[in-house]
């Protein structure tokens, strides 16, 4: 049994390496990497050019930059995992790849892990550029400690978004449809559902895009921080908006990552290549 498991692991690593090579050949990786560098740099250049002062604190500056972090994660996930499964079946390449002596599970898990590595690289680069900017503006000592917490949350959110995107890719036949559904689902549909639930005074704790608020909430100014379910910051019942609770948010992101990953793998393995 151990030999079989070792073989499966080796096959998965092979799939990961092959997929990464594929990503590197495409321009997608370049586009995503460019976004990860250009987006935070704009927050540095534009105030300089417009002669506007930066945020008064390093926390505020990082929070501003990372406001776009979740968008970058969604864009990256759509680029790397949007067509990971549907593309194989649409272009009939599955007929070749699935006929190899490799297990289907190792092929699809390899594809997922390769997409995850690509998204993790982009998120890491985005945070690194942000931290370098903070050092340049405020000094090394002012780099917020909570940046690491925010970074880990961003990685966890990236796995949740990837699993959801992979799930869409495994149930939809067309690459365009699966990519667009995952992109608009995460950028628009889920945030709209969250907003509507908040209007109805129901906390949308189970929606993953709502939990993503934690990525920037950890930087909030003292006295106005989130971390409370009903009411967000401020005195009780002062506001009708909600902010995600930390533990619940982490659990929701982990649950999305695991559940949608398993469903996506099962559906991909059972999918007919013909």
């Amino acid at each position, binding site marked *: *049994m151990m030999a*079989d*498991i070792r*073989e*499966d*692991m080796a096959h*998965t690593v092979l799939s990961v390496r092959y997929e990464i090579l594929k990503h590197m050949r495409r321009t997608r990786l370049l586009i995503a990497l460019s976004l990860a560098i250009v987006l935070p740099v704009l927050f540095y250049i534009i105030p300089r050019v417009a002669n506007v002062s930066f945020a008064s604190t390093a926390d505020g500056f990082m929070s501003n930059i990372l406001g776009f972090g979740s968008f970058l994660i969604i864009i990256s996930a759509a680029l790397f995992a949007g067509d990971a499964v549907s593309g194989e079946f649409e272009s009939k390449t599955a007929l070749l790849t699935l006929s190899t002596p490799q*297990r289907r*599970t*190792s092929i699809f*898990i390899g594809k*997922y*892990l390769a997409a995850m590595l690509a998204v993790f690289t982009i998120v890491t680069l985005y945070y690194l550029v942000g931290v370098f900017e903070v050092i340049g503006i405020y000094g090394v000592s002012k780099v917020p400690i*909570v940046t*690491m*917490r925010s970074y*880990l*949350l961003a*990685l*966890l959110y990236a*796995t949740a978004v990837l699993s959801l995107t992979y799930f869409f890719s495994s149930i939809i036949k067309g690459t365009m449809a699966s990519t667009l559904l995952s992109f608009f689902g995460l950028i628009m549909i889920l945030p709209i559902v969250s907003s509507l639930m908040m209007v109805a005074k129901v906390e949308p704790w189970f929606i993953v895009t709502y939990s993503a608020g*934690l990525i920037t*909430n*950890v930087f*909030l100014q*003292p*006295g*106005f*921080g*989130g*971390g409370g379910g009903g009411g967000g*910051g*401020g*005195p*009780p019942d002062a506001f009708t908006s909600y902010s995600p609770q*930390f*533990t619940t948010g*982490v*659990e929701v*992101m*982990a649950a999305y*990552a*695991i559940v949608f*990953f*398993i469903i996506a*793998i099962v559906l991909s393995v059972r999918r007919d290549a013909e």
Partner: protein
Amino acid sequence: MTRTPGRGGVAPALSLVLLVAMAALALAPSMTVMVAEGSGAPPLSELPQIKVANLSFSNDNPKEGQDIVITAVLANNGTFDIANVSLTFAYGEVNITTVRNLTVPAKGNRTVEVTWKAVKFTHVMSAVPAVDGVPFAKVALTKSLTVAAKPIGNAYVVFAALVVVLLTFVAAVAAPSVWEHMRKR
């Protein structure tokens, strides 16, 4: 010509009564003071001479959930002790507590302390005195206090969640082999 008898005697009598009454009114405050000084009760003119002289916190940069000791100093500038004083502590519109039955000595101070579990926000903390249940809002003291929110979450929790997710992925790779082995058995 007839003369109304007694009419000339009524006017002086009325004048005398008025004079006595006016004299009594004029002497009344000093008589009260004398009585008051004798019994210890303050004169009406000195009642409002109480004020909150100082308001301070055990921690000026507290965090949400911490116990903060709020200290208020009541000052009595009058010459008489003031009894039955109460002091209400509040943040914004929310009352924390009211300390009752205080006595502030004449020309002296009285320190009052209460403990409050800090609530996150920038609050206007206030201490409002009252004598015999009548609040003296004009001599209340307010002070701003920012209570920092608790640090949101813990990096270890997120790290643990990430490890669980990644272990699930690894388990998913091994799962088919394990399943086959179990079926063969």
